[in-house]
């Protein structure tokens, strides 16, 4: 096996991984950084983010407002000290991206422009038309080319971490083009492999979003935190799940049921005014909007389409010219994929899985409990999203915590000596054997696609917008069963060059582990909070028993062990999560209460 000696290995070259690699390279140009990605960096799913990235800029805004929106939006399951750090860093990171060339949309005077976003009290979402993630990713990727110490491993698939002496010391990768294995030795490893939305059926995620890094860390004993919190985005394309960004509503889009009625006013988000007000109606948080859809569907007030029930996202009143300027990609998506001209016809939408709030447990320095291991981006749980992420906080997170992870991993790498190559190689050889076993065996009977579809369906059935004990139990059982059946998986393709069948099988293994952590974390949380809503007697939030982070621990073939960790509260005591007029009233009361 080939061995590559690096100081830092970054697994994942999406927004978080690239930002981390750049930060590490800037910390000390002498450090050798291996940047590994199973796809070329610009294919990473950050590319699909449309709406924008948060950072306080307006005079009447403040870090406190951003903090309160984030913590309240997360139903108080946030690490408040980390959120404080986060909101304080966002703007500088956005400016940094600007200096690196990100084509942010501008105001006529040349300053950057911001737009409204769901759950945010004041406009603070930086945007580059509706291709924000695309521009951020390309800016970061192209900027990373400037640093000679970053050695990219494009289209190298990571299959395992190597851990020795209680610390992580490298990763094992497959070169997709050849099927050959390489051990990348590193003194610290940053995981930035993105989310896991693909374990669900209808989702907004790209095919590569399969939770690989989460599963790798998990299998090495690192807990996955808050995995039951999976965000449904309320406005997605029926069938494919492709996203119509929240910016559609930020720009003034309306949600209508089959009677043309703005139904959100019936769910505590009103009153309905002509223009959506921040934190009200269409600009409520995603969990609430998706839940409202569910109720409308129950009441038979949705529209039946070929891919299930839909409501209408109405942009007509914004006019073609404005839509083409602010939401050009949305315009094209609607035209090309649905044959709908959004200036003339409302767009049919329904909720789909969008974001994994939980992930690899890390502290405010992005350090995991395993020495030398760091994580950043959607794969991590650094603690800012709590039970529900606010739109535009994730792209900002990639930058803020990508940078932290890069700096911290660089520091750590300088503090330890390189490991013993021989024994690391032995571990790598084991990992290779295990991965190759999938291809070598010829007696497998289970189709990859069948297992994958059954997994995605059962996750939707049991861990959807609303959850029940019985159906979650059924999902847990089903995932256990699928894990058993996976042992009998059949990889049809036996070749070495670009064997995607093989890689899909490995990904499926990762997905099953992550799905299991989600399902078991969900069934154990006997309350409703944020994106985790139950209808079986646990409809209320229970701060006494569950103002806690769940932590799923890997247990091989058995069911994961779930325990709980404390939530750090600094300045915001848990309150009622209210939006619309009720939200404004609640805020008034909180203010008065704090004055006396």
């Amino acid at each position, binding site marked *: 096996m080939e061995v590559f000696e690096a100081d830092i290995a970054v697994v994942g070259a999406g927004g978080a991984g690239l930002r981390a690699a750049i930060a590490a390279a800037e910390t000390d140009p002498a450090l050798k950084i291996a940047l590994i990605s199973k796809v070329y960096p610009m*294919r990473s799913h950050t*590319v699909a983010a449309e709406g924008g990235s948060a950072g306080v800029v307006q005079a009447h805004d403040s870090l406190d407002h951003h903090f309160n929106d984030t913590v309240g939006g997360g139903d108080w399951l946030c690490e408040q000290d980390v959120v404080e750090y986060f909101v304080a860093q966002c703007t500088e990171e956005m400016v940094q991206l600007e200096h690196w060339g990100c084509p942010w949309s501008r105001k006529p005077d040349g300053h950057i422009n911001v737009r409204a976003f769901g759950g945010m009290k004041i406009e603070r979402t930086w945007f580059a038309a509706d291709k924000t993630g*695309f521009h951020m990713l390309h800016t970061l990727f192209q900027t990373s080319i400037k640093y000679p110490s970053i050695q990219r491993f494009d289209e190298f698939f990571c299959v395992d971490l190597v851990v020795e002496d209680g610390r992580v010391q490298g990763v094992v990768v497959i070169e997709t083009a050849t099927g050959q294995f390489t051990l990348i030795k590193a003194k610290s490893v940053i995981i930035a492999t993105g989310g896991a939305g693909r374990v669900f059926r209808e989702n907004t995620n790209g095919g590569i979003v399969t939770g690989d890094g989460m599963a790798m860390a998990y299998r090495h004993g690192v807990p996955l935190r808050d995995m039951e919190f999976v965000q449904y985005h309320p406005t997605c394309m029926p*069938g494919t799940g492709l996203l119509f960004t929240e910016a559609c509503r930020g720009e003034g889009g309306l949600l209508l049921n089959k009677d043309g009625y703005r139904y959100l006013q019936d769910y505590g988000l009103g009153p309905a005014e002509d223009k959506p007000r921040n934190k009200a109606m269409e600009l409520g948080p995603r969990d609430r909007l998706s839940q409202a859809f569910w109720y409308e569907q129950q009441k038979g007030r949705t529209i039946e389409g070929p891919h299930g029930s839909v409501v209408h996202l109405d942009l007509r009143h914004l006019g073609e010219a404005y839509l083409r300027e602010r939401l050009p990609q949305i315009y094209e998506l609607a035209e090309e994929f649905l044959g709908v001209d959004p200036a003339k016809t409302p767009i049919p939408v329904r909720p789909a899985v969008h974001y994994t709030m939980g992930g690899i447990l890390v502290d405010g320095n992005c350090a995991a409990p395993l020495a030398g291991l760091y994580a950043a981006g959607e794969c991590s749980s650094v603690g800012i999203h709590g039970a529900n992420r606010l739109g535009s906080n994730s792209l900002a997170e990639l930058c803020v915590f990508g940078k932290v992870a890069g700096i911290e991993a660089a520091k750590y790498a300088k503090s330890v000596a390189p490991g013993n190559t021989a024994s690391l190689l032995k571990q790598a050889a084991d990992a290779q054997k295990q991965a190759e076993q999938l291809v070598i065996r010829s007696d497998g009977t289970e189709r990859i696609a069948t297992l994958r579809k059954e997994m995605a369906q059962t996750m939707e059935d049991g861990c959807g917008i609303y959850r029940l004990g019985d159906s979650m139990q059924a999902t847990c059982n089903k995932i256990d069963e699928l894990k058993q059946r996976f042992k009998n998986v059949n990889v049809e393709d036996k070749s070495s060059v670009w064997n*995607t069948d093989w890689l899909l099988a490995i990904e499926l293994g990762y997905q099953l582990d992550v799905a299991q952590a989600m399902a078991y974390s969900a069934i154990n949380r006997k309350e409703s909070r944020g994106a985790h809503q139950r209808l079986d007697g646990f409809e209320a939030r229970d701060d006494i028993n569950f103002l806690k982070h769940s932590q799923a621990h890997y247990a091989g073939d058995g069911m994961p062990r779930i325990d709980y960790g404390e939530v750090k509260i600094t300045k915001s005591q848990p309150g009622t999560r209210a939006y619309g007029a009720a939200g404004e009233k609640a805020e008034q009361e909180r203010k008065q209460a704090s004055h006396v």
Partner: protein
Amino acid sequence: MVLPARRQNRKESRPAMSEIEKTIPIEVLRYRPEQDTEPVLQTFQVPFTDDMSVLQGLQYIKDYLDGSLSFRWSCRMAICGSCGMMVNGIPSLSCKTFLSDYYPAGLRIEALAHFPIERDLVIVMDDFIEKLESIKPYIIPKTPRALSEGEYLQTPAERDVYEQFSSCINCMLCYAACPQYGLNSKFVGPGIMALLHRYNMDSRDGGAEQRMELVHSEDGVFNCTAVGYCSEVCPKHVDPGNAVNINKTESAKDYFLRFVMPKGSNSGAAK
């Protein structure tokens, strides 16, 4: 309490044939370097619904008919740039090309033209990446600015000048469309020129002179004969052919004016 019965058309693990009325023949150019000496066509009968993309057709083949078919894809929404292929000879993003447009005659899918085939529909894109890396695709500040000074000011009009060229998703359809690249792969080519031009046109950038060396060179823009098909197939309206051809004028100006105006007189960027 029970959750509502799922939608009527809930998909079983394999779509029931009754749900899918039509079948379309898809011819795929296969090349497995470990077993084929040269590419061969293979035909699959794929059941489809009207909203299915060509990419979904290929996924159907991989999932149910032949797991060994390899192709790149990810976002399914025409933004990641992975899924470029020749569909009936035309460079296309397979995720935004729809099967129903080829019914009933069927369609032929091949790997992107002008690139070496690695395997099936996967091409070797090293050349494109090396070119991308070679053009300094990052801001070389005209006037350096500290983060504490905030953002550079850039008016919407200044942004418009380069915005279109910054929308390139690196899908390489334009390379598959450009015969001059096919004939001479040293030619810098349309997509990379769009990117280069994007930086040169950015009001924050002062590195144009460093990048122009490649533009002026024998591998530069004068390999282009203004075929224009690159811009025709570009799925993001980048108009890469425009970037190439504007730079012919720029390069020609420089070719003659360099005798009049010595180097470095109008740009401070050092080599």
